């Protein structure tokens, strides 16, 4: 590949989103078309696809004096980021129109939203493309800073609280990852690597066997803890359900669908170094332990969940712990399954979150118990949400079925039968909780028919007169103005809204049936990480 081509392909995924973000940020007379948002995902996808076609079988592409680098893993992650970003940005115009109609978003808010979302995409692409582990850290921390105001965009108490927890927990957690990075750098410098090479991932991975084991052990432990905070695994996971439930729906889709896995990709990079320096046992123990704890927390809280956006957030934790478990196994088969799982989860979760955002606009409540008969009221919406959860449950034909089977098979083949047996039990619990709640939301009679017999509605009406009868209902959110009655007439969802959902579900199902040309880059990416 010529230097010019590699420079364009590697800087494009970072530069184009930042340029789009700048376009949103500068004041202008004419409003920017909502579809301008699709430029950045298109750039990321194109560069990712070209890199995916070229990189397997060649040497990694670098540019900018070893600042950016793309190997097969980078290409795969770029494809995932691009695909999920396309779904989220494609769903944004319909979402923003809904928010504007409800009076929650002004034109200025929409511009700020665009600027922040595209800066967020640029930061994630930079995190995936960074060759230097220090720059990787800077990019991951930048995602926290950029998304803080997206999480806290509504100025309500819940929104401010979520943003505060998000910034404090993620920044402190990721600071620990920086301490770990510093310790690895120290070990590398003492092993004789030069200042510019000591944080350079390929050099470090090639010379990892010379690192001092004690210092590296401490450093890698901190790195797993720190990037784990951003990837939503215990012990620093408390921000995740709050942030994912308060952010605008397309941003929740991006955060859950790719931000978690971009942070996890950093752990994958460090795993290569740790395996060479310390043997495979250390990272395996760390990741298997965190994975099982996270899975237990997620399954437990899913069982008691009454809010559907938080339910999806805990489902993200469940899937990230499966990813961590597969990484703990570490064989090439397991890593392939992990990467496929990352892609499948990203696609399915972005459909789930964007359709959940539409449900929230339609029914004005995020309580599971108050949503019934979605399929009858809005068939496209109910089908999208239901099928996305079916995909998240790991049922065929969606790709999460194939990847979960792959992780389990690899674990049994590699002598990790016990942890996986425990994990399967917990996944089954989560499955039951998710399936029961979603079935209640999606199925059931049309709201018009249930209204006559719905006790909740009657109770509110009576409670207003008698007082006290509605005490069991939660207090209305402090919005400052009374909520108009919920419109429960059948709703037609426009093509602009359902097209991204259909495409996401189709892509997820297609990945599950045949990998096609992607199989090549997937296996090459797994070979980058799963060398043993």
């Amino acid at each position, binding site marked *: 590949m010529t230097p010019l081509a590699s420079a364009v392909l590697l800087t494009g995924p970072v530069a184009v989103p930042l340029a789009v973000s700048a376009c949103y940020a500068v004041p202008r007379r004419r409003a920017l078309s909502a579809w301008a948002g699709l430029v950045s995902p298109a750039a990321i996808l194109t560069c990712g696809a070209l890199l995916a076609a070229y990189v397997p079988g060649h040497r990694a592409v670098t540019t900018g004096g070893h*600042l950016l680098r793309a190997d097969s893993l980078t290409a795969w992650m770029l494809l995932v980021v691009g695909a999920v970003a396309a779904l989220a940005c494609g769903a944004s115009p319909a979402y923003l129109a809904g928010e504007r109609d409800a009076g929650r978003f002004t034109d200025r808010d929409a511009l700020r939203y665009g600027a922040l979302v595209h800066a967020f995409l640029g930061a994630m692409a930079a995190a995936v493309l960074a060759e*230097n582990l*220090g*720059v990787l*850290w*800077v990019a991951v*921390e*930048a995602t*926290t*800073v950029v998304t*803080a*105001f997206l999480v*806290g965009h509504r*100025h*309500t*108490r*819940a929104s*401010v*609280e*979520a*943003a*505060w*927890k998000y*910034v*404090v927990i993620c*920044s*402190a957690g990721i*600071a620990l990852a*920086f*301490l770990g*990075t*510093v*310790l690895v*750098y*120290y*070990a590398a*410098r*003492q092993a004789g690597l030069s*200042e*510019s090479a000591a*944080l350079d991932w390929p050099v470090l991975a090639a010379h990892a066997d010379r690192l*001092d084991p*004690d*210092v590296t052990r*401490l450093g890698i432990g901190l790195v797993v803890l720190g990037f784990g905070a951003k990837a939503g695994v215990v012990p620093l996971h408390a921000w995740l*359900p*709050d942030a994912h*439930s*308060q952010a605008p729906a397309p941003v929740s889709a991006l955060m859950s669908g790719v931000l978690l896995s971009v942070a996890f990709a950093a752990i994958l990079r460090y795993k290569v170094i740790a395996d060479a320096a310390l043997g495979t046992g250390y990272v395996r123990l760390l990741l298997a332990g965190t994975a099982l704890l996270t899975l237990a927390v997620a399954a437990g*809280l899913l069982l*008691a*969940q009454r809010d559907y956006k*938080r339910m999806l957030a805990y489902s993200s934790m469940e899937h990230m712990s499966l990813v961590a478990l597969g990484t703990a196994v570490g064989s090439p088969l397991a890593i392939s399954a992990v990467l496929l799982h990352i892609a499948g989860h990203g696609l399915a979760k972005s459909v789930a979150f964007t359709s959940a955002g539409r449900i929230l606009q339609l029914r004005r409540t995020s309580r599971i118990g108050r949503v019934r008969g979605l399929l009858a009221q809005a068939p496209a919406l109910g089908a999208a949400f239901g099928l996305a959860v079916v995909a998240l449950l790991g049922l065929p034909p969606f790709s999460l079925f194939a990847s979960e089977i792959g992780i389990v098979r690899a674990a049994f083949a590699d002598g990790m039968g016990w942890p996986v047996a425990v994990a399967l039990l917990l996944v089954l619990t989560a499955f039951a909780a998710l399936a029961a709640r979603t079935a209640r939301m999606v199925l059931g009679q049309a709201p018009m028919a249930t209204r006559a017999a719905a006790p909740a509605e009657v109770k509110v009406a009576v409670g207003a007169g008698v007082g006290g009868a509605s005490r069991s209902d939660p207090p209305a959110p402090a919005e400052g103005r009374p909520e108009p009655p919920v419109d429960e007439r059948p709703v037609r969802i426009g093509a602009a809204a359902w097209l991204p959902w259909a495409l996401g579900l189709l892509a997820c199902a297609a990945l599950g049936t045949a990998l096609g040309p992607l199989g090549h880059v997937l296996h090459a990416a797994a070979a980058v990480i799963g060398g043993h």
Partner: protein
Amino acid sequence: MNTGIYGQLLDLAAGIFLLAAVLTLWRRDLAAIVRIFAAQGMALAAIALLLGLHEHRWDLVAVAAGIAVLRVGVLPHLMRRALAAGAAAGGETRETQPLVNVAASLLTAAALTLLAYAAARPLVRLAPSPATRALPVGIAVVLIGFFTLVTRRRALSQVVGFLLLDNGITATAFLATSGVPLIVELGVSFDLLLAVLVLQILTTRMRVAFGGTDIDDLRELHD
């Protein structure tokens, strides 16, 4: 520079650095805590300056100057502004009731320092030198920062805890390896500045939404 004096000055700067972290646990007055934080930034810049002079690396001297500007000037200024806004809104200038009282906090700081020395033994053993022998101080400040973060209840105290944590990491980086590469250092400082700006704005919003900045009031979201 004379090696003996260099070692002594480095130990002095590291000592002040650790002492400042302990003092933030002792004082309740938020304005005093911000002053102590600025003094700690000065000690951190002194560590970088000493290392730069000792190794005849002028880029390190420049980094030391940058650290002084950021951690003695800009960040304390931002915190003072947040504090002034708080005082104007409702007179929140003190850390009212930390989760752990002052005496217990100081004892915990002593225990955390011992823990840091124990945990950092392999780090010192790898390359003993005057700088790396002071390295446990950096780890101790990281731990004290984390402790401040989880036990303090005012939003601004949490920000101080986060910044202590970050000062500790930067000190560790200098003492272990004379700092990370320049591009990483720049990126980290920029991220830090933005994170503090974000937290400052969120503090203002919190005051509007909750009528105060007590973290215990944040209980809208739970399962």
